[in-house]
């Protein structure tokens, strides 16, 4: 007989039968568990997916195999998970190979391939796989037990210690049980292998090829050195066989009921990823009676699957600007709360009465309105999630329900009413929208009256805020001098609605979007430019759903082009030491990272990046309508947090922004954090104006002297 491992060697038929019964029971339990989970997801709202299944599968596979998302911003955890993943995968494939040979091809066709050279190679590969797995698991234990990164602390910012669902120790126990179970399965596997070698040490073909199972061979040498005999090996092998086998079966049976299910749910979640989840929020169907998510069953089945994909890795918790400043919100806890709620209410055969499905409130698993209103919809959580959980639409859908009931800050309520009445958040008359043009020495074309190349969508803050009006005028001068044929919509323009939509006032958003689409339909232009990243995002990603398809760019890309073409000429280099703040809606939302940096380089600025930049940029705190909601008095604010980060850059002269709201937020934060006089906050347009203008009256370099 060719070399192989004889399965169930020396087992009584009854024992083999018992094993098969147990194995079937484990698989049946697994199957039942899967059924319960799928039934749970089936209680969500149906969704249609764009994109082919195959393309989605390929994308998912790429993410999983490369571990790209897990390794981001945490290379060690990514590396360790990669070891566990590939170790586990190989061991699973190994077991499947044996099943294929022994239980399928053998009995059905009399074909066996698991012997000889293939068997030896197989043994080596699986031994190595076990080492990879164990090494990864041990690092994860070290990480949880000794490194204890703050993101793995399950303390909840949205609950008090007395609350019934404050305690997260069950999660901790599960984490450790998971790690230990796998470690013990791996260890018993190696010792089982070693015990078999000791037992069969008399058979030369087995003993002489022992180094094809290097880990088992080392242990076998050890056992023999410690005095273990052949019969001792046989006894140990039998005991370990059952221990290893039973543990493995229990593990399989428990997959759908424990965090182990992330193997499937995370993969599913990645497959269903919506690359524009936060950029393009879901519409509310016209015929829909209720608005937003009130009951757990108002979420889509994809969102319910998202909830189960969470592995509590804490990256969203770490990235969230609300959480970082002590607000009662952690994206992780919103997801976990809803998951616990879904498990509690949707796991049994019958759906409980509607009243028990309400996800709003302060009860176990419910989400409080304070939590929902703390969100800045900055997308940091969505962007960093390694398993493609989309928190922002979940939060906004829940807010829609709060808005419908009027459960919001009075200031916000007032602002929404103002926007409805006047079309802008400043409560100014429509006629005043273009008042900033009056100070210019040249006229600005009315795009409603004459065709233009570039339609400039100005936006609320850039139109009405006195500080931003200076920037707006600067940009107009730049366009004028560069000979760009541009125009604006004057009082035809309304608030773009980006933040109104993120507040959850979908009806008002629809009104604003429709008004702007209509206004733009009445103008002749080739493309749109805007200085406001919020307007940029909604026009670019959301207006197409309302019939408005345009070519639109943020001013930074247009200006860069004008500079490169020599249409904007710089009189001098600024030579400033600057840092750049990526606006959420330009950077994370629309990947506009390079143009502003390229412009800064052309301006002769030395760019020093903050630790949190580009995709990991830290929100100013104004997003999601939070600019209309007063922050709690005395509390830390995201903008303060950011100013402290910038202030740590030695010799920083200018904190450069390219968003009207950023200018407002950070100029305020500069003062309140006591950094006034150390460096200044400037719009990139202002630096451009300084570099363009001939005279040396520039205010910014004055800081150099300070």
């Amino acid at each position, binding site marked *: 007989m060719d070399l192989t491992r004889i399965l169930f060697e020396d087992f009584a038929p009854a024992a083999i039968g018992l094993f098969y019964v147990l194995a079937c029971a484990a698989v049946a339990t697994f199957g039942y568990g899967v059924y319960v989970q799928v039934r749970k997801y089936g209680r969500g709202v149906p969704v249609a997916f764009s994109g082919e299944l195959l393309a989605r599968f390929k994308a998912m596979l790429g993410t999983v195999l490369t571990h790209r998302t897990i390794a981001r911003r945490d290379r060690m955890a990514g590396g360790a998970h990669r070891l566990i993943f590939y170790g586990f995968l190989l061991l699973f494939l190994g077991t499947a190979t044996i099943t294929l040979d022994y239980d399928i091809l053998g009995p059905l066709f009399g074909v066996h391939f698991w012997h000889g050279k293939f068997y030896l190679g197989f043994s080596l590969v699986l031994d190595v796989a076990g080492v990879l797995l164990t090494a990864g698991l041990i690092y994860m234990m070290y990480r949880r037990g000794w490194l204890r990164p703050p993101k793995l602390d399950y303390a909840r910012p949205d609950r008090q210690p007395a609350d019934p669902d404050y305690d997260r120790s069950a999660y901790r126990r599960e984490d450790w049980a998971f790690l230990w179970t796998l470690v013990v399965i791996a260890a018993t596997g190696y010792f089982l292998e070693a015990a078999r070698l000791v037992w069969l040490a008399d058979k030369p073909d087995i003993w002489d090829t022992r180094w094809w199972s290097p880990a088992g061979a080392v242990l076998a040498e050890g056992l023999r050195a410690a005095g273990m005999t052949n019969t001792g090996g046989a006894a140990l092998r039998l005991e370990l066989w059952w221990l290893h086998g039973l543990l493995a079966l229990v593990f399989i049976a428990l997959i759908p009921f424990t965090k182990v299910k992330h193997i499937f749910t995370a993969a599913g979640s990645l497959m269903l990823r919506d690359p524009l989840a936060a950029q393009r929020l879901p519409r509310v169907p016209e015929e829909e009676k209720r608005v937003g998510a009130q009951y757990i069953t108002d979420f889509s089945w994809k969102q319910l699957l998202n909830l189960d994909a969470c592995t509590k890795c804490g990256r969203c918790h770490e990235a969230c600007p609300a959480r970082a400043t002590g607000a009662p919100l952690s994206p992780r806890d919103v997801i976990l709360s809803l998951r616990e709620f879904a498990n509690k209410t949707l796991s049994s055969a019958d759906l409980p009465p509607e009243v028990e499905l309400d996800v709003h409130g302060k009860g176990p698993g419910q989400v409080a309105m304070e939590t929902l209103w703390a969100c800045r919809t900055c997308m940091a959580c969505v962007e960093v999630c390694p398993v493609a959980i989309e928190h922002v639409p979940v939060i906004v859908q829940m807010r829609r329900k709060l808005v419908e*009931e009027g459960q919001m800050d009075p200031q916000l309520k007032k602002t929404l009413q103002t926007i409805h009445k006047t079309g802008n958040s400043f409560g100014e008359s429509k006629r005043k929208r273009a008042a900033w043009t009056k100070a210019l020495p040249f006229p600005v074309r009315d795009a409603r009256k004459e065709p233009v190349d570039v339609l400039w969508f100005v936006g609320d803050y850039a139109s009405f805020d006195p500080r931003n009006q200076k920037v707006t005028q600067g940009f107009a001068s730049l366009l004028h001098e560069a000979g760009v044929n541009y125009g604006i919509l004057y009082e035809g323009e309304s608030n773009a609605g980006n933040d109104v939509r993120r507040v959850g006032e979908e009806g008002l958003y629809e009104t604003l979007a429709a008004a702007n689409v209509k206004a733009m339909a009445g103008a002749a232009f080739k493309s749109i430019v805007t200085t406001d990243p919020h307007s940029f995002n909604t026009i670019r990603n959301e207006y197409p759903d309302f019939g408005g398809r345009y070519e639109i760019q943020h001013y930074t890309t247009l200006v860069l082009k004008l500079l490169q073409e020599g249409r904007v000429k710089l009189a001098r280099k600024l030579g400033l030491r600057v840092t750049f703040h990526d606006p959420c809606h330009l950077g994370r939302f629309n990947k506009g990272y390079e143009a502003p940096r390229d412009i800064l380089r052309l301006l002769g600025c030395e760019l020093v990046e903050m630790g949190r930049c580009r995709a990991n940029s830290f929100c100013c705190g104004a997003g999601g309508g939070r600019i209309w909601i007063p922050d709690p008095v005395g509390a830390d604010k995201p903008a303060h947090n950011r100013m402290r980060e910038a202030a740590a850059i030695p010799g920083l002269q200018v904190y450069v922004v390219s968003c009207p709201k950023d200018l407002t937020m950070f100029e305020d934060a500069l003062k309140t954090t006591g950094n006034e006089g150390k460096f200044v906050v400037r719009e990139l347009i202002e630096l451009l104006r300084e570099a363009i203008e001939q005279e040396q009256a520039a205010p910014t370099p004055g800081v150099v002297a300070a």
Partner: protein
Amino acid sequence: MKLLVAVKQVAALDEDFEIRADGRDVEADFLIRDVNEWDDYSLEEALKIKEAAASPVEVVAVSVGPEDADEALRKCLAKGADRAIRVWDEAIEGSDSIAIARVLAAVARKESPQMLFAGVQSSDHAFASTGVATAAFLDWPHAAVVANLTYTPGGDTAVFRRELEGGVLHEMQIECPAVLTIQLGINTPRYASLRSIKQAAAKPIEVLSLQDLGIAAPDVGESGSLSRVRRMYIPDKGRAEMIEGDVEEQAARLAQIIKDAIGGAA
């Protein structure tokens, strides 16, 4: 059981406005329309009673005004009013608060509610008399500036509090049906989401004419009013000046100003 709520589509001034050619009002183009703030509170008070009631309560919003008043009524429907009535006729143009009250009283007679709520005043004309004048036409008891109300639907009386000067409260009881004018702050008006307003657009607004109410045209408009607007104008702005410099300079400047003023008067 029925509660009638009188609402008004008021006008606010846009930034740069112009006075109408006849000099008696602002050019309509320069007006921004909205629901009278007080009426938000009186509607909310009615809705609160409706929602707390064990038996069905019908809340009916009524407005006297041209078509653009539909917008105000639609907001009421969006918030939860059961019906909306708008009364209009060309003849109503130019009515003062008394003539409007005559119309409202006719609607109240037709609807026979248990209670009629009106705002203390309207933010544009601020007569603060429409509600009480309506009570007079109806010969119903009334109370003005109600800041707190306890009323069980179907009850013969209501207990309410009024705010008086110096923080003193007046607790009173009133026989129903009655007219109450509601003060700001009595409750927190709910938010009418745009979606609910849009959905309310599908709900009907009953439009009544003077004929429907049995009112003769001369009883409304300028002929039915006790007052008429003679002129609307912007008074000359007062001036203020910060006097700077040392004491001597300040005294000199002050003396100059006084001299100028006396000279100007003379």
